[in-house]
């Protein structure tokens, strides 16, 4: 009994030490970002502030606010569109399979894993030719297209759990392809939409490569602005920390409020789900 207790204490000790290590960056971000200007020296990085001062947030916010809004304009339509298309594809690939549909699905899935560097130069040339280069619209199109494999995969696996007998009996009742989608599939997809939307929201918000190559200056999303902020020599690092927190806030909030769905999306991304 005593031995068992010791092992429990040991397990807790390891978990607590690891938790502290994992939370260290959070401590540094928060402590630094609320320090008054005269306490923001690198020698006192770990010290608690003597007074709370939000001026670095004001500074970071004025720097990043336009880009924050760009990210919102990007992420909302891109998430909704890619989720809707994913649901349509997933419906077909799970409930209306036809000869060769599995092969089409595998061909689509490969697009999920490619390094986007390998399509970037043609993509930019293409966006230039249709006048969407350096615009939020161009980024929306990009994220919708390259989000299709994962949203299709997620909905396909999600719909696989809806019994085929339901579809069959609806067919016998005379419902057609669209009717079944609208009246049976969509109402059953709410949690599927939540998982996919959270996944797409998080990924598109956090994405950097497309953002930095397809847009410049005025239409840049938040992550590019944050990178510019941290790359500039004149911006103090308490402002950088406040900026990092502001940029991370939307996805962190989603994680805190809807973590269960976030983890489901995480697991669904591994092909087999």
């Amino acid at each position: 009994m005593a031995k068992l207790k010791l092992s429990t204490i040991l397990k807790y000790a390891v978990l607590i030490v690891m938790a502290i290590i994992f939370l260290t960056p959070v401590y540094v971000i928060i402590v630094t970002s609320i320090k008054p200007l005269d306490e923001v020296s690198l020698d006192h990085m770990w010290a608690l502030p003597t007074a709370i001062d939000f001026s670095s947030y004001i500074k970071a916010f004025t720097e990043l606010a336009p880009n924050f809004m760009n990210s919102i304009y990007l992420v909302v339509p891109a998430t909704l569109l890619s989720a809707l298309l994913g649901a349509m594809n997933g419906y077909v690939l799970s409930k209306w399979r036809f000869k060769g549909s599995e092969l089409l699905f595998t061909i689509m899935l490969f697009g999920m894993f490619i390094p986007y560097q390998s399509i970037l130069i043609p993509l930019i040339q293409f966006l230039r030719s249709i006048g969407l280069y350096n615009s939020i619209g161009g980024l929306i199109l990009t994220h919708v297209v390259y989000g299709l494999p994962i949203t299709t995969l997620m909905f396909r696996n999600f719909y696989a759990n809806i019994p085929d007998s339901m579809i069959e009996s609806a067919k016998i009742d005379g419902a057609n392809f669209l009717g079944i989608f609208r009246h049976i599939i969509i109402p059953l997809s709410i949690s599927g939409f939540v998982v996919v939307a959270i996944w797409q929201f998080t990924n598109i918000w956090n994405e950097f490569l497309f953002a930095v190559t397809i847009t410049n200056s005025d239409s840049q999303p938040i992550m590019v602005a944050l990178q510019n902020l941290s790359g500039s020599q004149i911006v103090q690092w308490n402002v950088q920390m406040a900026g990092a927190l502001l940029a991370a806030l939307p996805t962190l909030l989603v994680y805190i409020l809807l973590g269960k769905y976030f983890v489901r999306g995480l697991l669904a991304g591994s092909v087999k789900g």
Partner: protein
Amino acid sequence: MKQEISTNQHLERQPKLNKKKKISKDKLMAIAFLAPSFILIVIFVYGFIGWTGWVSVSNWNTLVPDFSFAGLKNYIYLFNDYRFQADLRNTVFFTILFIGLVIIMGLGLSTLIDQKLKGESFFRNIFLFPMALSFVVTGVVWQWLLNPSTGFNQFLQVFGIQPKWYTDTNILAGFEWGSIEFGLPVAIIAVVIAAVWQMTGFSLAMYLAGLRGIPEELREAARIDGASEFQIYRKVILPILTPITVSVVIIMAHISLKIFDLIYAMTGSGANFVTDVPGVYMFETTFRGNYYANGSAIAIIMLLLVAIFIVPYLITSRKGDN
């Protein structure tokens, strides 16, 4: 009830030919649902890869597109290039360390969390939250934490050690290879730490899902047979988790091989390119230097590296799916 009868009558009255026609109309709708997405993927993924492949064998290394055929010139240039050789070396060591640590951390922490301790969801949430962050945020923060003159070094001062982290230019166990010194670049360890901090949550979640799927009776039966807890873990649990390990390795490998944002935000290329990777080189040479053909060649090499891992994985896991 009334409705049921009427639909049945409706069905009986319907001639066979009509029914068949309706099904084919549904099939047509199904194809119409899928077609736009599929066509987009074919163009934007496969078409654009082909286009990149074409650029990679062209002479377009200037601002103005030049599609004249250059053969393998750009590839030969890259494999003789000091920076690209360093990139390949760094990618090898980054990938091995990153995957190894993510697996060990995920397996260890999920095993601890699965012990029915109090507060398990609290711990799980802490290890998982970095997954919700951007690599850019991670890079900005860890750049300060592993800055040699501040960050963790202020603690390590007590023990008299002051690692140079990502500014270290040493290559451990190095030997001459091409124009570079092949060995473990010490600076890459700093980037690995940040990447592991961010991605451990993924393997943790995967392993935890796997552990939760193992029926308690299985452990119980092994216990009755006289197996110790450690033996049960090694002989029963770990083999069951092997498919999960395979998935984690593949997914982490493809993230590692195409990594760009974390390194770009945290360290950049580093002195002597000790923290440079193909993703950063591709970005800089293409969009800062206008060497489009060279950039395309790097991109194609990255794609081939990822494909080595992904294509067999996709084929086998899709087969098992049906």
